[in-house]
């Protein structure tokens, strides 16, 4: 059985440049069917991969930036390497995420703070790796929409919902249940990677990343 509790994020949206107020309801599910469980991982690449994205970043105040994002992943080891490059190919940031932590290989100002490295690798992890462990609840709505919930540390949780036809959404909520990050993924999927993704961070600092897949391998 599925029930919803309403959560209006208008107040959060008020803080954000050109991002409208969208009520995003939180969904609570009953126990899921084992047959549906693989659907919770459908939006993430299953094997090793590498990709190039065009990234358009917008921050509060209207600042804009276009960069290349190069990412290489090894899902079985939850390992990711991520680079940010200018259009000329300068590497502004190069870091690797492993189980043991984040190793920054190169970071050029203003991308050289530990907070930036931590935040960026959190975003990359959110986009390309499923949350750790098995979802606590999962299931399918009558229209075929898959909904999966993971509980994280500090009472935070992550929800993945969507279907092949309607697209997919990842919602990260804090312990108060407020959405702190939202990712919208649109197909077609190429080697397990969405053709287009948009990440909106609501707090503490609002920003928006629009990513278009340019290259995927294998």
């Amino acid at each position, binding site marked *: 059985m599925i029930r919803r509790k309403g959560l209006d994020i208008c107040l959060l949206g008020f803080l954000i440049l050109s991002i409208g107020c969208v009520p995003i309801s939180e969904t609570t599910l009953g126990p899921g069917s084992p047959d549906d469980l693989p659907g919770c991982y459908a939006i993430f690449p299953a094997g090793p991969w*590498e990709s190039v994205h065009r990234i358009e970043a917008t921050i509060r105040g209207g600042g*804009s*930036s*276009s960069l290349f994002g*190069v990412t290489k992943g090894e899902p079985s080891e939850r390992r990711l390497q991520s*680079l940010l490059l200018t259009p000329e190919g300068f590497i502004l940031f190069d870091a690797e995420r492993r189980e043991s932590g984040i190793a920054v290989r190169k970071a050029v100002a203003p991308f050289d703070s530990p907070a930036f490295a931590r935040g960026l690798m959190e975003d990359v992890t959110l986009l390309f790796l499923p949350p750790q462990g098995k979802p606590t609840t999962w299931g399918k709505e009558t229209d075929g929409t898959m909904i999966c919930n993971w509980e994280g540390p500090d009472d935070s949780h992550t929800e993945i919902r969507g279907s092949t036809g309607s697209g997919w959404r990842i919602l990260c909520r804090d312990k108060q249940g407020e959405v702190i990050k939202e990712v919208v993924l649109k197909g077609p999927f190429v080697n397990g990677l969405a053709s287009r993704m948009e990440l909106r961070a609501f707090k503490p600092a609002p920003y928006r990343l629009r990513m278009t897949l340019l290259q995927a391998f294998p």
Partner: protein
Amino acid sequence: MGLLCAEAVPSQDWTSLKEAFRNIRSVKAEFLQKRYLQILTKPLLSEGRFFFYISDSLRWEYLSPLRNVMLQKGNTIQIYNFSEGVWKPEMTQAIESRRMVLAEISQWFQGRFDESKAFKHVYSPGPPARVIMVPGEGINRFIHRIEIVLSVRPGVIDRVEIEEPGGSRTSIEFRNVEINSSFSSEVFEKP
């Protein structure tokens, strides 16, 4: 064929090269940039065009897959991104690095390889004739060397190869190069 310091090359070669570049007032060309990274199996390809007018006006524009333009007129540098149907000013990311690159490119198209503050040059008469730019202390952490391959057309650059420590590199191939053609000065002012 050895690489020789410019001063040691037979003066005719080096002098002819400098003379060919001295006659250049403007350059307009398209380019294909190939970015090779160790993390990537295939290079990242970008296409663009540039306009240059002596001595310090440059438009360096990427048309795909990112649309971005750097405009230099004198000491003023502006960078814009084409996003959501409009040109938007770029947030100041790596502006100093890009300023340095623009200054270097401007010097190359004037054949002023010996005026670089950041690089020492070595000339090889070829064929093909090449100028090797060797970075000084500090920059050599990011760039191992730059090779500028010259065309048989006097004063024209065919290709630039930028090698980095660790094996990554960038190749920029120029094509449809027009020398001393006329174009509006607005190309250096507006995206």
